[in-house]
């Protein structure tokens, strides 16, 4: 079997784009994936939409070229709210203007820090509009006051700005402004030789090294029409699940820390440490850096290390199953988490919330069931599922996923196939082709979307981190809650700022 897929590509016009997309989204199992743009030549640009047909496990592309000299198109956000940040990103990166967008302003490139005329991804002769300066949404009314927080926060945490509008202690609106960590990854990915692009691709959010590396490798392999050997696929699965395990375990400890439940905060960091030790055993380092590469993985797991790893997984499973109930059955902890930071299933659906946060709000969506990556969908677990959408639901989903990851790890280690661990890659990527890697990373749906041009050079590399969808979920979830519950609510989402800022 090969992972190459001929992508269904629909060409349309900017004026029909919204209606066509909306119509396609009514098909069962169809999801909005991402929206971005791509230069066709120095003067022309096309809007690209990625839809995910989860029933078929196939991506579907819609392309709407803009006429040369135009940089305006009718916004999709009114019909597809999940696209609201992606459209603003087009404003920043391509100098485009989504006409009719309800909150049109810059997203990542702050007007006081970046030259107004900078459109880093636009063609040299493309028509552009300067970015619309940023203004926070002003909530008005008697007694409303604002609390600005960040970019630098009090803990060991990434930078971002949160603007709370509050009535007394109650949050009426939270506006999240990110972009502080913009590093220009997507542009750089078109400048480096493609066989070295995995290093940058993996650094999109370096706490998700295995997820990003896997999405990158899957996209490249799809472009080349190759499938890595079965042992490499199994080893990649181990890396992906260890990453999920380590981060979910860390989240359990961090949630306890924010609740002030010290036993939990003391018990879970060492478990996370044990998961990172497994990672080091498998890949050579705790963060699984540079392990997954297109064509396979960089190092094998010999028999002795496989046994040791299996032993470690069994041990960790025993401890995790002992410790999780200490948190999730503790009445004080439950009281704090229950009903806090609710995100309703309807809003989660409208804004395309993914990963554990989506599954906590009624979405039955786990990429492992739908799209080919690592040993999936063959080994896909039944997705954890809750309807309540509160902090407790998100914690319970993570606890369940700790269990399923441990089961998958045990199964893969017990059935590790024999084969080489990589295959030799050709020197070039095919010209004018598209490769899309879609992975269920520990935070959810992660997409690496590569387009090649003349001579197989990468001309566009778009990355959609799961956090890009989910930040809006956090902003909605905190409404009507106490300001003091924000850290707990934030931790229950635990999103990536750098994966969002690119």
């Amino acid at each position, binding site marked *: 079997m090969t992972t190459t897929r001929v992508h269904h590509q629909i060409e349309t016009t900017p004026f029909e784009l919204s209606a066509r997309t909306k119509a396609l989204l009514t098909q069962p199992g169809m999801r909005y994936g991402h929206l971005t743009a791509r230069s066709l030549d120095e003067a022309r640009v096309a809007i690209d939409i990625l839809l995910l047909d989860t029933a078929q496990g196939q991506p579907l592309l819609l392309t709407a070229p803009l006429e040369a000299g135009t940089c305006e198109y009718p916004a999709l956000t009114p019909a597809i709210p999940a696209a609201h940040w992606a459209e603003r990103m087009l404003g920043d990166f391509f100098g485009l203007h989504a006409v009719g967008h309800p909150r049109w302003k810059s997203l990542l490139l702050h007007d006081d820090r970046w030259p107004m005329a900078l459109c880093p991804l636009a063609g040299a002769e493309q028509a552009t509009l300067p970015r619309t300066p940023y203004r926070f949404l002003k909530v008005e009314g008697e007694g409303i006051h604002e609390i600005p927080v960040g970019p630098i926060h009090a803990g060991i945490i990434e930078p971002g700005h949160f603007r709370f509008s509050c009535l007394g202690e109650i949050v009426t609106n939270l506006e999240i402004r990110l972009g502080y960590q913009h590093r220009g990854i997507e542009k750089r990915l078109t400048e480096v030789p493609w066989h070295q692009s995995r290093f940058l691709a993996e650094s999109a959010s370096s706490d998700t090294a295995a997820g990003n590396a896997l999405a990158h490798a899957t996209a490249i392999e799809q472009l080349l029409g190759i499938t890595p050997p079965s042992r490499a696929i199994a080893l990649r699965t181990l890396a992906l699940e260890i990453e999920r395990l380590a981060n979910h375990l860390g989240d359990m400890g961090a949630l306890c820390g924010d609740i002030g439940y010290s*036993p939990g905060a003391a018990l879970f960091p060492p478990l996370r440490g044990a998961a990172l030790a497994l990672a080091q055993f498998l890949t050579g380092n705790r963060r699984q850096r540079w392990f997954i590469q297109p064509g396979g993985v960089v190092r094998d797991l010999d028999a002795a290390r496989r046994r040791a790893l299996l032993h470690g997984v069994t041990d960790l499973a025993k401890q995790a199953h002992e410790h999780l109930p200490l948190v999730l059955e503790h009445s004080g902890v439950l009281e704090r988490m229950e009903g806090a930071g609710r995100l309703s299933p309807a809003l989660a659906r409208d804004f395309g919330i993914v990963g554990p946060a989506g599954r906590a709000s009624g979405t039955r969506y786990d990429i492992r069931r739908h799209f080919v990556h690592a040993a999936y969908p063959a080994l896909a677990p039944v997705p954890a599922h809750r309807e309540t959408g509160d902090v407790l639901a998100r914690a319970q989903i993570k606890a369940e996923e700790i269990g399923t990851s441990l089961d998958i790890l045990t199964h893969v280690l017990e059935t590790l196939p024999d084969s080489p661990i990589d295959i030799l890659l050709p020197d070039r990527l095919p010209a004018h082709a598209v490769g899309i890697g879609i992975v269920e990373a520990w935070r959810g749906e992660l997409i690496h979307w590569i387009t090649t041009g003349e001579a197989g050079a990468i001309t566009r590399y778009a990355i959609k981190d799961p956090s890009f969808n989910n930040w809006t979920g956090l902003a909605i979830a905190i409404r009507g809650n106490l300001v003091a519950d924000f850290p707990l609510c934030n931790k229950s989402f635990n999103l990536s700022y750098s994966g969002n800022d690119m």
Partner: protein
Amino acid sequence: MRNPFLAIARTGIQTQRELFPDLPAEATGLPTVTAAPCSGCGECAAACPTQAVSISTDTQGPVVTLDRGRCLGCQLCVRACATGTITEDRSTRTATRTRSALMHSNRPQLIQSAPAPSRRFMRSLHIREVSTGDNASDLEVLASTNAIFDLARFGVHIVASPRYADALLVTGPVGRGMHDALFRCYDAMAEPRLVIAVGVSAISGGLFRDGYAEANGVPNDIPVAAYVPGDPPHPWSIIHGILLVMGHKCEPACNNDPLAGVIGVQN
């Protein structure tokens, strides 16, 4: 009813007694350059994704220069080198007090000497962390504070405001979006203040270097007191960097006897 305290008691003391243990055999460390003669084949430089290795020649033959300040630790150069000139080094004592000490070569290096660190913070150091785009390093800084590595045993605490911090620990490449915030944080600190650059992106920008985002690491106008290489560095290496700026004698090698030479008595 299950008792969480029994669970804690059963897990026992987690803290590692041995300070700066070498990485275990299954782990890969950062590359270093040995005296083994280099053939000048150039494979290492061709393999390196960040141009951290360069090859030149002098009268004695090929000269290898490896800049750990730009190195991701991907091991490609180690695997490419047939002569064993570049090998991996499993030490966790990798932090340095000068940028030039991160240069490894098969020739004697011109290393600027750093002024002897003040011992003012020997017993206690309060640190403010600023993250700018490398969340793996943030997680390793966080890990250094957990029960296993236990940064607090050295009198080091991570604090919430630059106003009461003695040191600023920077992770990530400091792109244009963070310049202003970083300078404001630094300016808010009382003197004397120390800066520690953690991770390859904070040291040089790493993979992001020289792009339009100007993400080239801690800007030159902020003096750096310690550099911790790695992408991300191991928690022990981060602790090493912190102890270096506190003036502990743990460079280039200290013995592994807990506390000896590390918790100094001089003041």
